[in-house]
């Protein structure tokens, strides 16, 4: 079962990789005045903060939602959760300046945990 689940992720990682490339290309093309390395850092920041956490959180729903739809809605879902938790963590005394490490990592972990331990054994995903 665990192997099947890993296989699903492995298969989907290819698509996630293509999306990352498209995102990086889009940022570089649109913001062509930005040096390549800066542009890459901006794209990877979007990936780290929103794409990966969103993707992982929505893995649980892979049978119901196509991967592209999951990635795009995941961007927004991750942003919303991060905004909310960052506010509360700050109020709780955890300095906001470390949240960009902590929060995406936490969401990725929660998403993967929900996927591996909470979802059914069905390994097939909906394709767009």
């Amino acid at each position, binding site marked *: 079962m665990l192997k099947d689940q890993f296989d699903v992720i492995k298969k989907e990682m290819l698509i996630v990789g293509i999306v990352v490339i*498209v995102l990086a*290309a*889009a*940022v570089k*093309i*649109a*913001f*062509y*005045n*930005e040096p390549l390395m*800066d*542009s890459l*850092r*901006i794209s990877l*920041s*979007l990936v*780290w*903060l929103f794409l990966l956490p969103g993707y992982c959180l929505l893995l649980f*729903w892979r049978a*119901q*939602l196509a991967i*592209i*739809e999951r990635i*795009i*809605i995941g*961007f*927004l*879902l991750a*942003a*919303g*959760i*991060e*905004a*909310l938790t*960052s*506010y*509360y963590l*700050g*109020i709780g*005394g955890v*300095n*906001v*300046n470390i*949240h*960009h490490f902590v*929060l995406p990592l936490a969401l990725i972990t929660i998403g993967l945990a929900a996927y591996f331990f909470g979802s059914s054994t069905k390994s097939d995903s909906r*394709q*767009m």
Partner: protein
Amino acid sequence: MKLSIEVAIVSAFFIVALYLGPAAMLNHTVNHPFPYAYLASDAFQHQVRADAIKETGNFKYETDYISLGLTGVEGRYPPGLYHLAVLFGNTAGIPVYDAIVFLVYFFAVISMLIMFFVIKHFNSTVAILSLPCSMLIFSFPPIVGFLWGHWPSLLGQVFLIGFIWVLINNQIKYQFIFLALFLASIIITHTSEAIFAVLLLGSVFLYEVMQKGFSLGRIVNMSSGVVIAFIITSYFLIIFNGTWLTAQSYSFHVMPIWEGNPGFYLTGFGLLLVIFALGMISSLTKMKDMPLPPVIGFIMLLIGFTNLIGFNFRAFQIRFFWPLYLSIFFGLGIYMILKLLVRKWGMLHNIIAFFLFMILLSGIISVPILAQAKTHLVPSVPTLYKSSSPGIMNQYHWDMLQWLSMNTEKSAKVYFFYGDLYSQDALLRNAKRVHAQVDVGDFIESLQNRTIRRYYLTEVPGDSGGMLGKRESMFRFNDAMSELPKDYPYGRKDICLYNYFVFDKVSGQQALAQYNLLIAQDLLKNTATKAVYQNEVAVIIKNGLVGGDCIAERPI
């Protein structure tokens, strides 16, 4: 095959929309030497608050230089956007002022893709044909929402589109989790949009009841989402209730026009209205079993008119995204028209029509007849706003403000004399010190009377919107303004009480700049007072006689 073409179209659209919208506004760069494309005070208001959160590490309290010098004022503005800006700025290694504006634009483009998936539930072809229209959120006047800094509202609406996506996906497992998370995101980003979200939810529920009958499961699902959202945002909602709702409670008021703002009206769609009308009529013909996406389109159209029932400018803010909410009618209208010409509609027709409308609405190619319509004030076709402007700020003023924030004592008080920019007073908060500015009318009067004075009518600018609430107990907030003398925010003040003075050396009205410099010279007659910073446009003077007789009043 069909599916991968769809992905290709969505990807192409993403790149084009990012290029023609956000990137064009930001001069095709993310990093700027100063806040770029900030065209109004509100934009600085949000940038400064996000910066302050980064500095203090949290948004427990509003900083003193934002709240008229008061400390202990509860952070009451919906904090979502600010926290995201700090997170993104820190990750990408860019200043918060660039991060915040980039995120608002970026997520606006993401929301177009989400709307595509919403409409796809209705019809794939219509979804593709709707995409070009959604780009019109970057046309004038909707672009004003971005340029004038209605950012929390815009990001709130991006989450609202996420909320719409959840409503459409009513078969999704644990739908209430999505409802709760998106509603909570709206609440902490721009709470007024949450009222619209709940209105939308209620309307959709009623529609479903009319269509399919009452379902206990649905009501449990929807209400659980709302209850969870309220629970997880309760800490903020208590503050919101004790400040904003106390100070700005609802009152019935008809506001047909948004005074002082280039609001968006239906006529702004120009000739495209014909297409919209066709799409709407076509939807209405299937009223009995109309699918949810067009129903939501109609609801968002009506929500945009709630300015007529007391929602005032909040309704006008919704209209910034009308091109996106109503894009389904555009896609449907186009589809109806083109179906008359092409009987067997295929993916190739889809692609051609998509690109044609992308070109037409982007304004890349100027169609002579449409250009003529623009000059003759007859309905034209709106196209993307293409002029990139640095906005209000410039390098010299930015350097001056940065100097103040980095080189003056934390407790220093700064007095700004006349400056062309300073009417957009939130930008002054970048000094990160408690500050005041001269009243322009009194300043001009003093010049006309040919006098140099020690006491000027003075404004202590700051953000007092929604009440400067100090927490008295869990649920009670006290208006901190009530502790202050009535003339504190605006009254005649002794300039000698301030530690630093800022004088602009250049102005559109040079007489005002010369008067500035005359005052500066008189201050410098005192040997303890020194010019500590200057560049091409501004000079900063440190008052050596704080509380003393720092300037002699005299005729000039």
